């Protein structure tokens, strides 16, 4: 064994990373600040941030797509509300989830295809991580939270953000609880004048180390499937260690960070439309603050599940049921009740974009350094169609992504977007997706 003191920490870890499948969460040490720490201090180059924003049951085909590909000049009627943000978004049409003869499980296969690039065969397990997890693995190791997940309708057992189908990231359902988690007693204000490392935190670190040591021995004894579970446990433990390490350092000041007031007035989580929209607004405001204060760089917001259970107070029928039961109005050409829900969802989309775009940072807004990937589960809910699944992006990812475009394909797999989004967020990947979704064709139209 070489003299360990001679090895720089970075060199040793690089060597280890080359051979290891497990990502190491590195403490945010001074040696890294040289490359981008001074940038953080003066705010010139704040890190990019990823948000996967999901809603269920899609749009009405023909009413959301712009008529021409290329520059976004006119938005379809269902996305009209996004008009003020035309120059900051991209719209993607014509992408599909090819089944290759495998079952198309309504509201399940669609989102899985979009976020993991895989369609499971009957009885098959999906052991692949979702895009946001891959992004978090790449960029989430230096922030207090690797990522934050929320559900706007109160579903804690999330199915969207996952490392594998037995490792699903749970959702926050209460804005007030999320506030406490982020800005409560463990929050370190980057702009605070004074800072004193807390000996209790150091004590907690030593305890976690002790837990970790004993863990390593268990790793030897388990079978291969359980080994993956222990790896995940270890990764999660390391994330907590990361949090503690950050608590012991004075954070770099962040101009746009100001601690918000505690979240109040959040309605009980539920699927009634106004309740969901209100909770969504509260969550977005909180998450925007969290990002501005450097707490995380990866967000997952599920407005609904794939099978949208949004409903109007006093109505016996939920959004999803309407998509199947409501007849198409012959004079309108679409289902009116369903479209009412779509319009509500679009208004939430606008809320989200405008919340991020009204956060001023440096010379621009928070949205400028973000890449928001808006996804859904189907191209036409009435038929559970996996063709022409709507996708949008918002934000420029700090200049890495062009905006104001409509990209239209003739049935390309959705995995092209999953690949593109990862690349834009700095994941080192050249090709992604399984079976006929395997692709290396980045959507170059939007790459700057």
């Amino acid at each position, binding site marked *: 064994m070489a003299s*360990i*003191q001679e090895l720089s920490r970075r060199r040793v870890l690089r060597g280890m990373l080359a051979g*290891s499948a497990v990502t190491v969460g590195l403490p945010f040490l001074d040696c890294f600040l040289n490359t981008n720490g001074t940038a953080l201090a003066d705010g010139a180059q704040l890190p990019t941030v990823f948000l996967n924003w999901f809603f269920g049951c899609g749009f009405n085909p023909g009413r959301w797509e712009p008529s021409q590909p290329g520059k976004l000049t006119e938005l379809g009627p269902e996305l009209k509300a996004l008009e003020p943000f035309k120059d900051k978004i991209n719209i993607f049409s014509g992408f599909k989830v090819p*089944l290759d003869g495998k*079952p198309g*499980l*309504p509201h399940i296969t669609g989102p899985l295809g979009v976020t993991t690039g895989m369609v499971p065969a*009957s*009885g*098959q*397990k*999906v052991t692949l991580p979702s895009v946001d997890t891959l992004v978090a693995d790449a960029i989430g190791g230096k922030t207090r*939270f690797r990522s*934050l997940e929320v559900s706007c309708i*109160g*579903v*804690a057992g999330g199915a969207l953000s996952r*490392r594998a189908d*037995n*490792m*699903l990231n*749970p959702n926050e359902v209460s804005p007030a609880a999320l506030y406490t988690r982020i800005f409560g007693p463990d929050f370190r204000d980057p702009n605070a004048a004074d800072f004193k490392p807390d*000996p*209790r935190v150091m*004590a*907690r670190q*030593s*305890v976690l*180390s*002790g*837990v*970790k040591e*004993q*863990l*390593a*021995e*268990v790793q*030897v*004894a388990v*079978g*291969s*499937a*359980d*080994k*993956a*579970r222990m790896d*995940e*446990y270890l990764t*999660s433990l390391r*994330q*907590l260690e990361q949090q503690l390490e950050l608590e012991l350092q004075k954070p770099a000041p962040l101009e746009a960070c100001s601690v918000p007031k505690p979240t109040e007035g959040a309605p009980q989580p539920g*699927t*009634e439309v106004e309740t969901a929209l209100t909770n969504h607004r509260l969550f977005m405001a909180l998450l925007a603050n969290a990002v501005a204060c450097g707490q995380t760089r990866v967000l997952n917001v599920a407005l609904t599940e794939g*099978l949208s259970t949004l409903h109007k*107070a006093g*109505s016996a029928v939920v959004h999803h*049921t309407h998509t199947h*039961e409501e007849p*198409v109005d*012959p004079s309108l050409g679409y289902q009116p009740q369903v479209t009412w829900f779509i319009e509500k969802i679009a208004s939430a989309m606008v809320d989200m974009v405008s919340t991020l775009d009204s956060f001023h940072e440096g010379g621009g807004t928070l949205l400028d350094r973000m890449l928001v990937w808006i996804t859904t589960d189907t191209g036409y809910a009435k038929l559970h169609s996996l063709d022409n699944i709507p996708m949008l992006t918002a934000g420029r990812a700090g200049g890495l992504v062009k905006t104001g475009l409509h990209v239209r394909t003739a049935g390309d797999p959705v995995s092209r977007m999953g690949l593109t989004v990862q690349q834009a967020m700095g994941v080192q990947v050249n090709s992604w997706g399984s079976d006929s979704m395997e692709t290396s064709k980045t959507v170059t139209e939007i790459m700057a």
Partner: protein
Amino acid sequence: MVQNTDGKAAARRWLKTLAAAGCALLGFLVHHSTYAAESASSQKRLVEMRRITQDQYRQIIADVFGRTIKLGGRFEPDQRDSGLIAVGAGEASVTASGYEQYDGMARSIAGQVLDEQRRATMLACRPADPKAADDACAKQFIARIGRILYRRPLTDTELVAEIGIASGATAKVHDFYAGLALSLAGMLEAPQFLFRQEWAEADPEHPGSYRLDAYSKASRLSFLLWNAAPDPLLLEAAEKGELNDTAGLKRQVDRMLASPRVEAGVRAFFADMLSFSSFETLAKDSVLYPKFVSRAPADAQEQTLRTIIDLLVTRHGDYRDIFTTRRTFLTPLLAAIYKIPIETPNDLPDVWVPYEYPENAEQAGIVTEASFVALHSHPGRSSPTIRGKALREILLCQKVPDPPGNVNFAVVQDTSNPEFKTARARLTAHRTNPTCAGCHKIMDPVGLSLENFDTTGGFRLTENGVAIDASGELDGTKFSDPIGLGRALHDSAAATACVVNRLVSYGLGHAPTKADSDWVRNDVAKQFATDGYRFIDLLRDIATSDQFYRVTPPEMRADAGADRHDRSAKPE
């Protein structure tokens, strides 16, 4: 971990950092031997790891530290697989946000356990100096508590490591109790606590095979019968080797089955099998169904669990009767939902009152209770399809096939817009269209017989002014009302086979393997019938069978490398 600039300590620090990178680096580790290493030397294998559920976590904390300890955090949602959280637990890991929560809870619990009011009771000894480490006193606490938390005694090395952690933490915060609390918190988030680690040893009675070691056996037994960690008597029996002796095992099983704590075990099983975790996200439209107030879901679950306990435990009854029993328990709220008059002592709103339906009632058995009909419905109306599917999958263990790949839903577009007044009418397309009928005929006819129960469980004779037709059919048996459905379930072989299958899976933590299936079919199921389908006897039979404790180490499994947990895509 003491921070100093000494070279040796720096090296130790580096080595610990290296350990963090994962198993590729194990060769660099300083050799701390733990249970794993010691077990390796005695040929033990880690065969199963099941994350403890929310209820188990709460129960263990209450058993060890008493009921006054408050859990200050949120649990990572339990996962369901093969119909059971007990099986999903065998696949669950801990996510980053989950770990955060476990850590918060652990520190909160540990802080309460050693706070000024409680420390005198929790700790028999006193530190020599309350501001400094006291290894002897720490050792007493850690050994005693650790044995119950980890469901086995700590090894000498684990003990030394924990004492070291406590003293290290104490040195930083200059408070013995705070340091000890931090080490306790560490134990509460360690895998030995959060996961039920099951170790296999060579089985002397079946050379070449493996069985659970004594402590793992005690755990499996205790979680099956009481949904709790082994109590001191069971741990002692394990230590003395009594659980490997038929008479010794039987003694413990009988003791545990005779205890009131078996109710908690039976409750936990049925709450899992009946998918009560879905109540957490259940909501009913408050304008259409104002009776479904915030306590309604809890009352609904409790009603069914009480019905089941009364029948299967208190009265040592026949499992099949849960589908036909007229004896149940009601609160004033449930009585209002079911539109039944009841009398409560002293007019207390929270009291449970035994109630028996009259003989001509159209309501009997758990399938007509709110915990079934309300749980498996939409927020604003009932759903025969969801209820039919739930009945098949939950009570009969029958999987409804996934929809085929290219279902053309265009065929169900009906532009004539007829006004469908009842669910039966609304589901016409399911019934008449051949693409749909194949699967829907498995679900809808069963669920339609429950249409007299609206989405909250309230009884109704009409829907939108039209009389409800509650006739239905289950695998060839026809009936005209929910009582008939209950009878059909009672007489169904699938129902009794299902509960056996589920209970075995629940106890094992995975769906039965080939070897398990033979045992289940040829021994357990037959014995269940012979015993008159008495659930307590089924528990006894499983808990005293050798097969229940036989295991196959991972490297020896025929499907080694593949996961034997069936993780087919979850149903809608």
